[in-house]
């Protein structure tokens, strides 16, 4: 036991968790903590909006596999985090968000929780449905244990965001602090080991499958199960489609990779997944964007569903073989069970079909002319390192990036999947760059999205965090316009953004580098310059306002019925 203030204990507890970066903005209710941070070795990245602090923590977590930490003051600081927390929740990203809070009850303060004191917001109430758990310690002595529990919950089982709301008087009070390791939860014990009987059933199905297909989701990335996935796929000669969140868990130039499945999935994935006789779905949740019409999804397949969150099993699709377990352990168990007896199959017809469909997609791209986003991204991919980190905004830019920026490694494609948050990509890139300073981090952005969080250009310039923003500038809320074009008879309602801002001048105003390009050659040159630069670079790429992202499965349709635009 050591005596110290709650604020000091918080910082000590963070160090014990090996949290060495905080993305945040201070305020009245956090001054005691910032006072301790003033001369601590924890790095603090001063953001310009709390939403960005949460997204940066999220990007940091996704790029590194560690827990991301953000901090915001009470009231508006805390409520500004909400979008970022919801985003992390939907994509199962482990972040711990600390918020300041007004004092707890005490006899001699007139401001206290529940009395609507200045900058009080019920952040516990607000974030309950968008966090894995949240805490509000009421005494200083609870702080070390709370931090331990928060990190434990955020990072174990199905990862997710945790909020810790810190009343100001718990920060200033002094108490005996216990920095032990004990974490008790009677109601939280994630199940990691797969049940042997379920593995047996799944292995039998897979061993006898004629057309086995694997769908891998974000869970494969968060459990670090890529090599297990590849080993099993190769053993079975089973093609692998990923969900949007799973992008990167299988190198997309692997012969068995089908690319992404779903609304804007590849032709190969969307045509072949429905043909499976046995479907192994791992670390994914059958979201509507992945399955299209769920009642018509893979009608002929026996489905094996592996997920660590038992509530995902049977939520959207009832599988034939449910396996509640960690993806890595379950895939390994399946591999071990199959490897001895499995008689390797050739599947040459099946493999030829995969190559044919992949070629169809390439032809689709080759047919378009001019500075088309698909071509531009394909060429860009060739000049950046295999382990470069790509983040995206939301909209057409995101789907083009998902389709045409081939991803080769886990944790190198970072995007807002479940919530679809415009403005995520840029602050997430900041977090990713802090986590991985040695690789280029590129935000494939839309103009509309980038406007939403571009003020944090300041954080990157002042904080020395050089990232690259590639604005696919159609002066449009392009994805909404695409839906209006395809499904609403071209009635373009409230999607034309007009010319402003001038992104080059905007970048320059913040002390960043701004480059406008008019050709593919110029673009590639600009990216090369940007990768060498020690300051953030915004590359403005004017594109045609009426481009469509194809392929596309119309909302609610069957995945095999895709529009290709020709």
């Amino acid at each position, binding site marked *: 036991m050591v005596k110290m203030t709650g604020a000091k204990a918080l910082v000590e507890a963070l160090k014990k968790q090996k949290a060495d970066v905080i993305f945040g903005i201070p305020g009245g209710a956090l001054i005691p903590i910032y006072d301790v941070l003033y001369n601590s070795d924890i790095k603090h990245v001063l953001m310009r909006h709390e939403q960005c602090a949460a997204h940066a923590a999220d990007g940091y977590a996704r790029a590194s596999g560690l827990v991301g930490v953000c901090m915001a003051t009470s009231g508006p600081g805390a409520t500004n985090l909400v979008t970022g927390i919801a985003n992390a929740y939907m994509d199962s990203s482990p972040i711990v968000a600390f918020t300041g809070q007004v004092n707890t009850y005490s006899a001699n303060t007139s401001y206290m929780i529940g009395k609507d004191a200045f900058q009080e917001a019920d952040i516990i109430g607000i974030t*309950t*449905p968008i966090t*894995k758990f949240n805490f509000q310690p009421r005494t200083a002595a609870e702080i070390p244990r709370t931090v331990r529990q928060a990190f434990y919950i955020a990072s174990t089982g199905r990862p997710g965001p945790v909020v810790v709301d810190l009343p100001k008087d718990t920060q200033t009070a002094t108490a005996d602090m216990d920095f032990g390791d004990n974490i008790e939860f*009677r*109601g*939280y014990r994630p199940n990691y080991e797969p049940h042997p009987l379920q593995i047996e059933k799944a292995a039998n199905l897979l061993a006898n499958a004629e057309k086995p297909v694997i769908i891998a989701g974000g869970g494969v990335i968060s459990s670090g199960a890529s090599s297990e996935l590849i080993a099993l796929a190769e053993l079975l000669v089973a093609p692998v489609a990923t969900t949007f969140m799973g992008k990167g868990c299988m190198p997309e130039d692997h012969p068995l990779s089908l690319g992404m499945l779903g609304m804007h999935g590849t032709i190969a994935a969307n045509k072949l997944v429905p043909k499976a006789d046995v479907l192994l779905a791992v670390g994914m949740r059958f979201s509507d964007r992945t399955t299209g019409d769920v009642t018509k999804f893979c009608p002929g397949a026996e489905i094996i569903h592996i997920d660590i969150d*038992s*509530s995902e099993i049977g939520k959207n699709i009832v599988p034939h073989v449910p396996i509640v377990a960690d993806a890595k352990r379950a895939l390994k168990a399946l591999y071990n069970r199959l490897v001895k007896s499995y008689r390797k199959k050739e599947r040459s017809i099946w493999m030829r079909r995969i190559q044919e469909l992949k070629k169809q997609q390439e032809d689709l791209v080759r047919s378009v002319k001019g500075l088309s986003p698909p071509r531009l991204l394909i060429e860009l991919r060739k000049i950046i390192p295999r382990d470069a980190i790509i983040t995206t905004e939301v909209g057409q830019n995101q789907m083009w990036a998902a389709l045409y920026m081939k991803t080769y490694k886990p944790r190198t494609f970072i995007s807002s999947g479940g919530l679809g948050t415009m403005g995520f990509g840029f602050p997430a890139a900041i977090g990713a760059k802090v986590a991985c300073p040695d690789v280029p981090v590129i935000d494939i952005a839309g103009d509309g999205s980038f406007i939403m969080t571009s003020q944090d250009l300041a954080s990157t310039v002042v904080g020395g965090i050089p990232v690259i923003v590639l604005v696919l500038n159609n002066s449009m809320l392009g994805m909404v316009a695409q839906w209006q074009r395809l499904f609403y008879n071209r009635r373009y309602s409230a999607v034309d953004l007009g010319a402003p801002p001038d992104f080059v001048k905007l970048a320059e105003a913040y002390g960043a580098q701004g480059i406008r390009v008019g050709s593919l050659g110029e673009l590639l040159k600009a990216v090369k310059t940007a990768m060498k630069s020690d300051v953030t670079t915004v590359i403005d790429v004017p594109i045609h306002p009426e481009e469509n992202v194809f392929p596309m499965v119309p909302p609610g349709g069957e995945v095999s019925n895709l529009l290709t635009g020709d």
Partner: protein
Amino acid sequence: MTEKPGKYIVSAIVEHKPGVLYRISNMFRRRNFNIETITVGTAEQEDLARMTITINGDERTVEQVVKQLNKLIDVIKVSILDPANTVTRELALVKVNVPDARARSDVINYSEIFKGHVVDVAHDSLVVEITGNADKINAFIELMKPFGVKEIARTGITALPRGMTSVKVNNGV
């Protein structure tokens, strides 16, 4: 999976601390589960509460309810109770008009038949406390209607499995 619609009783042991009921009811609202009744009270250990939830739905929905409850960190144990093997009870307080002596003695007689108690007496009304399963309470209320029911307060159903089966937290958890 068969989809048997019907009434299900779910029993949950949860942490007995502030905010837990909020987390649970919020989850029901968010997940669009339709809860008929929910009761909470201290369980066999002081730091645990037992929550009894009745739901109208099909098996798949109820299975999701159980899984979503289990996912909450403050929820320690959840089971679906088998109606054939469960004791269920509800308590109701029913305030009935008794304008004259005749009505008064009728209401008192009926209460006795239902093993209820008159717990409050006023000039022109009585409050009857009645305990039993929901059907019994419904039947009593139907009977009171002709007299004029002024107010009803029902607790909702609470339940325990009979005999050997139990929904409790093992020591050492």
